């Protein structure tokens, strides 16, 4: 599907594609009702069982040990059907990447060894925030050889359904911030109800209030920003892939509908005004496919300044996806606005995904900062 991605990854494409078709498409609207309907536990469990939660996790940690291209292929196909599961895979992978960037493979392998179900394998994190940008609200105090965390932190994604959470905290008296892994079963771990949000309804976030929760240090004290930057540079390619998938889903639905729906005595696809909208959508989708595969390749090959490609890809495709998905609704007229079709969900999801990894305008500015440095 993604043009230049190596063909030995075809098996991931097949896996993700058939998973999406079997588990996601039919019940998409129902899954999207969360938190006003049941959570799709069974789907997350199956995703865990087939390895979708460990694509980039090294084999010695119990993962599949693939690089970012495989993750992109998976996210692309999953998000074309339902971006909520994509959000879960993404957030979990981001947490794993941060821990790996900190050189703490051992933490992950210990955790995965103990995990007996999806919950045990999932790691929550505030995947929409760049802690350096928003400010860090948790405080960590070193007590002998371990750390105690206190404070409140907003919008921790998966915080209500995971076994662990990766959170940034400030150690008193220090510059910068530090990542800690905490156990969600800890007595002092109090979570809000799932936050009612714009999109990705089945990828829920909670607000946390932690009181004397034991935290395991991830990497070095004060180096959180370094790990976040490293992980997020790679994960920007994944954001781009999610948007690419959402765009494809929206385009295909629109293309399909406009061949069925008649107005003015013919299928609406035969009005050139509508066909032009479809043409613009097709153009965006095809460019998105190229952009994702090139960005993922650049990251894998560690090409010079590869991180500029991944970030540009995420920013650009997010903008394109937000535009494309409004057209995706528009092509269906009134029906596009209703929950019975996937289009309104894709529109919400695209806007939601745009907010991953921090404020979009700030990420744009950071391109120039990093080009100059």
């Amino acid at each position: 599907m993604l043009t230049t991605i190596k063909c030995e990854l075809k098996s991931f494409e097949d896996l993700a594609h058939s998973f999406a078709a079997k588990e996601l498409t039919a019940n998409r609207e129902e899954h999207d009702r969360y938190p006003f309907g049941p959570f799709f536990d069974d789907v997350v469990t199956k995703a865990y069982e087939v390895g979708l939660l460990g694509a980039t996790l090294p084999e010695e940690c119990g993962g599949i040990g693939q690089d970012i291209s495989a993750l992109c292929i998976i996210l692309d196909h999953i998000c074309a059907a339902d971006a909520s599961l994509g959000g879960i895979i993404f957030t979990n992978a981001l947490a794993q990447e941060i821990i790996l960037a900190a050189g703490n493979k051992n933490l992950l392998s210990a955790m995965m060894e103990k995990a007996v179900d999806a919950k045990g394998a999932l790691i929550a994190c505030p995947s929409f925030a760049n802690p350096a940008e928003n400010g860090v609200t948790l405080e960590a105090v070193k007590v002998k050889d371990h750390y105690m965390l206190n404070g409140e932190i907003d919008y921790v994604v998966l915080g209500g359904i995971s076994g662990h959470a990766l959170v940034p905290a400030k150690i008193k008296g220090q510059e910068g911030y530090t990542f800690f892994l905490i156990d969600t079963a800890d007595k002092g771990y109090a979570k809000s109800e799932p936050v009612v949000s714009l999109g990705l309804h089945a990828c829920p976030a909670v607000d946390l209030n932690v009181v004397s929760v034991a935290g395991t240090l991830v990497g070095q004290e004060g180096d959180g920003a370094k790990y976040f930057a490293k992980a997020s540079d790679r994960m920007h390619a994944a954001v781009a892939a999610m948007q690419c998938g959402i765009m494809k889903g929206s385009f295909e639905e629109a293309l399909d509908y406009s061949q069925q729906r008649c107005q003015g005595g013919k299928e609406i696809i035969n009005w050139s005004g509508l066909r032009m909208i479809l043409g613009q959508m097709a153009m965006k989708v095809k460019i998105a496919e190229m952009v994702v595969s090139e960005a993922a390749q650049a990251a894998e090959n560690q090409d010079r300044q590869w991180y500029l490609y991944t970030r540009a890809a995420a920013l650009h495709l997010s903008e394109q996806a937000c535009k494309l998905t409004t057209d995706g609704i528009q092509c269906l007229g009134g029906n596009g606005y209703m929950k019975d079709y996937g289009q309104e969900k894709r529109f919400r999801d695209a806007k939601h995904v745009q907010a991953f990894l921090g404020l979009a305008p700030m990420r744009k500015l950071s391109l120039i900062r990093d080009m100059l440095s």
Partner: protein
Amino acid sequence: MIKPKENKSLLEREPRFEDSFCSLQAIPQIPKIQLKETRTLVSYVRKFNDEVVRPLALKTDLKTFQDPDYLPWDLVQKANEWGFYTMFIPKLFGGQGWSLPSHAYVIEEMSSACVGIANAVFVHYLGFMTVLASWNLPLINRICRDVAEGERTGNPCLITLAITEPGAGTDVEEVELVDRGKVTCYAEKVKGGYIVNGSKIFISMGHVSTWHALIAYADLKKPSENTVMLAVKTGMKGFSFGKHEDKMGQRACCASELVFEDCFIPDDCVLGDSRDFPNSQIRGTGELVNQIIHYVVEVTRASVGAFGTGVARGAYEHALKFASENAVDGKLLINHEWAQIMLAEMYKNVIAGRLAYNEANYSNSLKGGVFNFLQIKPLYYYMKFIPQPIIDVFFVPFYKLKITNWLMRQIFVEGQSLEAQKRCSGWSSIAKFFGTDMGMKNSQMALEMMGQAGLRHESGAEKILRDSKLLQIYEGTNQLNRINLFNCLIARCVPQARVFEE
């Protein structure tokens, strides 16, 4: 400097002066007191926003997720108590008679606080405009008096427009398309009335309204010349409600299915049958139907532009508040230059949206526009200051007379030139698609500025985005409105131009 004849021909060149400077031409003719009225209304609606809309906006939205069967009775009750449903109905029909053009400002104001609630209040005027455009005075009067009575007794009486069908959305908005479409709502003439079969969908506020201006067809093969406008009352035998839709946004305002099964509508509830329209000098039957549709949308599409402008403003206000209170990179967002530029862009979008719906409004105040008649100064002041009972005694009895009906047709049907119709319709389309595109733009921008914080329901910003999208779809999709603009104001100067012929 220039001879009158030359002057005329120069000004008739495209872009025609008449179409380009509506406000400049209209303002001197408008009664001065209208400004005062508008000020009063804007402050009144601001108070309503503080006391009703803002406290209910997010709560109601959330409620609709928790309870899919929710219908906005509570909102309707409030809006009724505050007099919104009779506010713009002329005193001739028992309403409060506030100047109709002011309704757009009121809409913008309320939409900036919650466009879902604003729609729940003002879509009633879409119904009202449709009833009005029939120029059938006795029936207009009867329906509007019901609305007034509903206000007096605390039993809200709302009007809907029911035109969209499962198989025909865009098609029913355009007389040129409707004959090629698949309309199914059939009105058969029988002794003493009509029997209707078929269904209508997406009818805003259907379940909670009392009167429905139903567009049906006496011949499904040639609907353009066989259009029947009926006033259907909730409770009539053979008329029932189907489901109401599960929508992305504007969830405070239900969208209903209306089902007609051998529903008998008596003659006194017939707003008009195009087959009975008297011959017109300048329009054939299809064009007369087209004129009615356009009379409605000339006002309501401009109103949707005001909805869009209101949304754009709400989004801007949310972004401004957020930027003023939150730090990014150790500095208040509002003090980042890029954010200031973004806010300025959003501010501009609001202003430009407002200018567009204003201009459309002024176009409706010019000769041939629907506001023009009621804005004739002596009539305006007379209506404003004369006590209601006098109107009831000295005007209402004349509604039934043939001569009155003839007069109405002379003023509104024959009295509207094709040029004026095109000017009004073209401008309302501009206001509609521009204002609503601005609504979409600003709601997207607000979320970009707010990032994670904007995603949360309680921020209100994500709801604005969800709400905003509808505006680009209903009252004719924005594409249809672009085509209508082309048709009204561009195609006329290119004789070889054809619309809907590809």
